[in-house]
């Protein structure tokens, strides 16, 4: 799969103007060596890893719908806000990154280590085993 040259990608740690995110399309860039998607959901900005955790498909070329991004290769699906793997063939979540907002500009920082769980949680379910 041809990919944009890494050097052509914007450095998201150096800031992205709010205007560039207003179209609700995730913006592909780099944070250090890592490919990251920065996305404005209409209320806040989120940053997640840009490669599918299944076989590394380019999520930037995928489809965004209802806060989720669908991988163009094998239709895995992730929550853009939490990084959670919402549907197979992916099982592992996308790495998340801190986002800071200053002077109409978003700065992507370090990755957040907490591993999000899938949307469905046991605690809310009527369980009797």
């Amino acid at each position, binding site marked *: 799969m041809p990919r944009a040259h890494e050097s052509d990608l914007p450095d998201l740690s150096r800031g992205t103007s709010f205007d560039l995110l207003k179209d609700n399309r995730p913006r592909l860039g780099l944070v250090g060596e890592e490919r990251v998607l920065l996305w404005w959901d209409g209320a806040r900005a989120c940053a997640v890893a840009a490669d599918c955790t299944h076989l590394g498909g380019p999520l930037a070329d*995928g489809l965004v719908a209802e806060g989720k991004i669908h991988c163009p290769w094998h*239709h895995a699906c992730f929550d853009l806000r939490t990084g959670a793997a919402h549907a197979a063939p992916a*099982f*592992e979540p996308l790495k998340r990154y801190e986002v800071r907002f200053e002077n109409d500009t978003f700065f992507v920082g370090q990755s957040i280590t907490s591993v999000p769980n899938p949307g*469905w949680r*046991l605690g809310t379910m009527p369980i009797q085993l």
Partner: protein
Amino acid sequence: VIVGGGAAGYAAAHAIRTSGWAGDISVFSADRDAPYDRTLLTKDYLDGHFGDDRLPIAHRGLEELGVSLQLGINVDALDAHDHVLRLTGGGIQRFSKLLLATGADPHKPDFPGADLPHVKCLRSLEDCRQIISAVKRASRVVVLGGSFISLEAAASIRSRGLTVDVISPEPHPLSKIVGRALSELVVQTHRDKGVQLHLGHKIAKVTTNMVTLDDGNVLECDLLVVGIGVEPRVELAKEAGLALDRGVVVDSQLRTSLPDIYAAGDIARWPDPHTNEAIRVEHWVVAERQGAIAGANMLGAATTFEMVPFFWTKHFDLAIRYVGHAQEWDEERCEGSVAERDVIIRYLKAGRELAVATVGRDLQSIQAEQEMMRRLAERRRACSAKLAANQHSSFR
């Protein structure tokens, strides 16, 4: 407890554990290998592009998830009433909830010579390892079958530089699934890469170094790979008295006909809300998503399975993606160019779109899938509005 260590079995165990269940989870797998990505066995693993490190189905194995995984174990009997499994060798395993995800076995060939050692079916990782080790010693390979498995395998073996002949009983391989135009594209792609295809032919007999076709034609052969379809493994379900219909019958929550027993993957025939038909498919991602839903439902989630079926297939540099399910259709609407590998084909029956195949238009494949989900939601809204209107008029 889960019977089966394939796509559905892994996904179920993963879903149960990551949903917060801290209790015991046991997986019994007839396979001797821990869950692996079976889709790679005919593609990047067979052509040598991926090594063993890429094979695990996901980054976290079952042991890491705190799941007891027992490999090479067959389950002989299921006592549904007493909630007990009887294992080969005499062991027993009790369960409170059970998932059957036993998958499928390859059809065995029946021509004279089918039991010779260089005749190999391709289903498991062990099958694939044997084929790769034979491929390294072979120079002339024959592949039997007009299936996705056989054709993908032929492409991967040809990519290693070997001479490959494909014998397909179907004159137009895959056409029952993807139609004539894409069947011809796949055939042409193989021919362009130097694969010899013998379409509409069967094998009359096989000897240690020759394959004789039904028209008397003889091919040299030092490895014969067979991919002629699979049979769902339903013996356990059948003997336990579960309702069967060319597979194990499940409801929209993937529950079988008996309490506390679920089924998912290749064996499950479920009510597909998109076509309003009870369907059974052998797609990898469907098995994984069914496993995840079944796992959640074993904990009480009561989620329905509504995924639009999806699969992909790869032959050399040609990839086809397919969403939906069209058992039969009366119209193919084609936009773009098949020859230029930039095309979307919609399969319709009585004007209703049942499935969509794409080449070189990955984004449109996801859009088609999302569109099918939207149409389902709309039909449901219309249906409940009608119901409400009827109730209103009957009151008057």
